[in-house]
């Protein structure tokens, strides 16, 4: 009887795979390709206007190439060579430091990453809880959502020192600052997502005399997952930004925020160190984003439509 049915019958082994191992390899490949292109454009710009042009060994005495133009923004002080930034990772962080800059930045990224992860989790849980409350109470939604929005207009640099006063000068303060930035997208997307089920799906649950709790777990949360994951991806990068910015005005040591301040002060003598730190910060954000994306792919492995990154 099944053969007579028109439509979408497929062999039972078929699972719509949104992205497989091949897809992941292609994504990483494309990312690396763009990185190479960016580096090439960067060096091309320096070859055109970066006076004086130095080679790998940094020798300015006998320049192998004279750029035709002299553009201030492209000189070694403002835009160090790609290879200078790259080799900076392997050189001592400061003149007498026993550790390479790379080792120090990895430590700093782990430190900041810990705060950011804690902030992401706290913000994610708090943001989800708010969305759940708002979806069940129009009154609370109307009353509180404006404050949720207003909370995001407060400059984090003004807030962070206050948090340190309340909580103390350690990484938990940083995590809270990070959570402050991460809960917002989760709440806003969560309200949409939890309200997204088809009214007939809610009617169906009503015919089962399902209590709100069951409706939440069996219909609202699963339906909201694409919305939540979109928010989690935003929150993942926001949590890293929040942690770095949270470290800066609070003087907390050991993280990327502190490293950025320090290498900013030493910019004249070693601009490539600040650039390397910026790259390390970006890499941390990408790792966070990628981790959420991987979890998303696992959660959605059986769903037809996955919202693309």
């Amino acid at each position, binding site marked *: 009887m099944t053969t007579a049915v028109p439509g*979408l019958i497929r062999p039972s082994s*078929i699972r719509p795979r949104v992205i497989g191992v091949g897809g992941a390899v292609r994504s990483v490949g494309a990312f690396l390709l763009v990185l190479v292109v960016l580096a090439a454009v960067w060096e091309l710009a320096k070859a055109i206007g970066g006076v004086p042009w130095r080679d790998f060994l940094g020798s300015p005495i006998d320049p192998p190439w004279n750029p035709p133009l002299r553009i201030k923004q492209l000189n070694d002080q403002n835009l160090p060579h790609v290879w200078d930034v790259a080799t900076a990772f392997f050189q001592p962080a400061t003149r007498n430091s026993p550790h390479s800059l790379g080792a120090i930045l990895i430590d700093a990224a782990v430190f900041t990453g810990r705060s950011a992860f804690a902030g992401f989790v706290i913000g994610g849980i708090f943001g989800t809880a708010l969305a759940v409350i708002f979806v069940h109470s129009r009154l609370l939604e109307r009353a509180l959502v404006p404050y949720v929005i207003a909370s995001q207009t407060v400059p984090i640099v003004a807030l962070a020192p206050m948090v340190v006063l309340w909580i103390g000068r350690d990484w938990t303060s940083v995590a809270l600052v990070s959570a402050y930035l991460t809960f917002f997208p989760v709440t806003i997307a969560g309200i949409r997502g939890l309200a997204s089920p088809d009214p007939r799906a809610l009617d169906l*649950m009503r015919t089962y005399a399902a209590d709100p709790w069951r409706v939440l777990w*069996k*219909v609202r949360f699963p339906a909201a997952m694409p919305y939540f994951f979109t928010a989690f991806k935003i929150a993942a990068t926001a949590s890293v930004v929040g942690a770095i910015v949270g470290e800066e005005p609070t003087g907390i040591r050991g993280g990327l925020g502190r490293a950025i301040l320090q290498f900013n002060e030493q910019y004249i003598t070693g601009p490539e160190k600040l650039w390397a730190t910026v790259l390390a910060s970006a890499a941390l954000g990408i790792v966070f984003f990628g981790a959420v994306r991987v979890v998303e792919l696992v959660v959605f492995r*059986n769903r037809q439509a996955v919202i693309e990154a």
Partner: protein
Amino acid sequence: MSERASIVDVQQVEKRFEGAGATTVALQGINLTIGSREFVSLIGPSGCGKSTLLRLVADLTAPSAGQITINGKTAPRARMDRDYGMVFQAPVLFDWRTIDENVQLPLEVMGVPRAARRKRSVEMLSLVELSEFSRHHPWQLSGGMQQRAAIARALAFEPKLLLMDEPFGALDEMTRERMNDELLRIWERTGTTVVFVTHSIPEAVFLSSSVVVMSARPGRITHTIEIDLPRPRTDATRETEQYFSLITQVREALRAGQGPIAPEAAL
């Protein structure tokens, strides 16, 4: 309609929708008694309140006036007791669940233990002939198969009453006839009472023990036509004289209910 115990009893029901400024009288003076194991179809022009009547019985909306009794209980009580199963025009299956898991959903909500749930789902899927597709996800099935899964889900907790709102409305004619055959087979095997909304006259006649004809603005019941075609009904039934004459009878009742185009409608 029947001397047997009534499953659904609708008395003097009215339903108004208060809109901005305007009030729609969706249903007025509705009386309907449906006995155990009957198969009753509601038919009428679009907007005459068929869905609204079904939703009233299901306690998805409350009547503006009148009384609705199901199994001797109020509609809300019957809903809380899970006395009925509902099938909508769209299958409303959850994408993130397999067909098997979709069928188990009402049982999960009702706290049935896992083993019993599984067993029941296997039975229901074999009843609607979807056993091989139990591990598929809804989007891997055709529209007709999805609707069968929705029926299996509605029957999973053995409700005495099945409420169906144009369940086959989106299907092509061929598939619809096959689904009708299957629905009758299921109905005969499970011994449920069915209230079935449709806008297809042949479908109503083929399936029903009686057809309730409604008219619009305000929605009312104008005729009730007993369908005494012998059972079991098969493809051969669709070619009998009696079948065609009943179709004509329902068509005329529908036309009579609509009446001439009312002059005030031209406003």
